[in-house]
Every structure is written in C-alpha cells, then in structure tokens.
C-alpha cells in the first residue's frame, strides 16, 4: 500500500523531525505533537508525496511551518540547562578540565540562545543535522546565499564569544 511505504520512509527520519521541532519549540510535548501532525499530513497526502524527490526536505518544511504556527506570539525558545549535556574534551579529565568544559558549554548555549531565530535554525540544520546549503534553502525558503551568510554570522558570533573567554 502506498501510504505504508511512505510512512515507513518517513519513520527513518522521525528523530530529525523531532529534533528540529524541539529546537524551534523548546518543549518535547509540543515537538511530539508537531511530528505527529506531520505524519498525519504525510498519510493524507501520500499520493502527491510520491512525486516529490526529497521527501525528507518536504517533511522538514512541514515540521517548520507547523512549529512556527505554534510559536507565533510566544517568547524566544531557550536551550536546556548545561546539566542536560555531558561533554568532556579530554580522555583523562581533571576537575579543572571539567569546570572549563562546563563554562565553555555554557558560553556556547548562551550564544546560541542569543542568535536571531533564523540563524539558530540554520546552524541547527547544518551543524546538528548535516544538511547541504541547498537542502537548508529548500527547507527554510531562504536563498542559498542567505543561508551561507547567516551561517557565517552565527559561527562568527560563536568564535568571538569562545575566543574572548579566558580563564
């Protein structure tokens, strides 16, 4: 059955859809609602979807549109707490290294939170999900040049903040 085939394909990237919705909404329940809604749309439009080459990009765009509808009028979404992340840059960490890593992580999260929404979105799609500029442009509706310029600005901001932090 056509529906089953497409749903099976979309299931492969449900986590990408969920992460993108979570990044935009900042709340796991809302993110799951959005992804569920994407699945319903996929089910209903399976005939038309067959003609779309990049179904993943289409689903990401639908996820984005549904999430934007949900966040309209809300306050900016903030990342979670530093305690939610466990990253250590050294194989043999000392208490100092652990402290430094946490402070750096805090800077990264604060800097990302302070970026304009479209830059947050673009850096997520590139650095977390690994999409090409063309795919990001397809998903977001920005031109490839806009994607590149905004990625440049977001990364420059991160570089600047991390470089300025000294112990």
């Amino acid at each position, binding site marked *: 059955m056509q529906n089953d085939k497409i*749903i099976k394909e979309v*299931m492969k990237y*449900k*986590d990408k859809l*969920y*992460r993108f919705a*979570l*990044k935009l909404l900042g709340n*796991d*329940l809302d*993110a*799951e*609602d*959005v*992804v*569920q*809604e994407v*699945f*319903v*749309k996929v*089910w*209903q439009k399976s005939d038309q979807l067959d003609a779309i080459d990049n179904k993943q990009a289409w689903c990401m765009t639908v996820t984005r549109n549904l999430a934007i509808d949900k966040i309209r009028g809300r306050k900016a979404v903030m990342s979670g707490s530093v305690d939610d*992340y*466990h*990253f*250590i*840059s*050294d*194989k043999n960490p000392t208490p100092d*290294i652990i402290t*430094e*890593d946490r402070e*750096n*992580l805090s*800077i*990264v*999260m604060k800097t*990302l939170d302070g970026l304009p929404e479209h830059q947050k979105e673009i850096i*997520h799609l*590139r*650095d*977390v*999900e*690994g999409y*090409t500029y063309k795919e990001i442009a397809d998903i977001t509706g920005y031109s490839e040049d806009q994607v*590149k*310029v905004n*990625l*440049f600005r977001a*990364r*420059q901001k*991160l*570089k600047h903040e*991390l*470089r300025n*932090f000294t112990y």
Partner: protein
Amino acid sequence: MNTKDIKALLDRYFEAETSLEEEKTLRQYFAGGDVDAELKPYASMFGYFAQEAAITTEKDFLKGLDSQTHTQASGSSKVISMRRWVQMAAAASAIFLASFLVVKYMIPQEESTNLSQTTAANYVEVQDPEEAIEYTEDAIRILAQVFKTSEKQLESGMERIDNTPVIGAQ
C-alpha cells in the same frame, strides 16, 4: 591530521567555507578526546552539536496515526495531546465552578432561579473540541465582564476610603 591542519580547517569552518566532509573531520577530531589546549573551547561547541544530534524520541507516531486516520478520514486535522485535553478539562471545571459561585452568591435568588431555567432550556451537548473551546472562551469573556464590574466597584470603594478624613491626622 595534525593540529596545524585542524586550525586551518577550523578557520575555514568559521568562515562558512568548509564542506560537509570537512566538518565531519572536525567533529571527529573534537570527539577524539585528544584536543590541543588552544582549541579546547571549540571542543565544547562540537560536543554540544554532537549531543543535540543524538536526541531521539520514543513516541510511537504510528499509534497516534492510527487514531487520527480512523477518526478523520479526510480534510485538515489538528493533533491535540493528552496534556491539552487535561488543560481543557481543567478550564471547563474552573468555568463551571466560577459560574456556580456567581449564580449562588452574586445574583439574587429569584433571578438565579430564572437563570437556571434559561440555562437548562439552552443546554447544548458539545462533542467537537474546537467548539468546546469557543464555548469556554465565551464563558471566560462573560466572567471577565463580571469581574471587571466588581473591580470598578472595588476601585470606587477604595477611592471613597482614601478620601475619608482621618480623625486625629496631622
């Protein structure tokens, strides 16, 4: 790849000039746990991205799809989670309680009896959640009006108290 090459790649990364393949090389370097001291601050950034990429959901979207597609054969749909049902139920309970209190304490007894009869005559059973929300919003508007009137009365009372001369005051 040596530290010098990584630094050069990192410079190009910040200029948004790296390919996906080169960015993968950077991620692998920073995940390796043997990062040059000078580059350590950037390790947290790549570590953060890696952890973000590892986030998954356990929700069974197929199960949700079954209930959605069985109840909505066609047309547009809106997914409402259990939490929202609870919120709507809580809102409905609050409205019911507030309405009960208004009828019992704020409207004279005779008027209240007439109101109850009218309400019973206009009783409508709502099945559609969207329609239920509309009814709830209407009820909230009416309640807000009642509270606004009470607030005005309170303000006018407070004004009178403020303007009352106090015996013995200097």
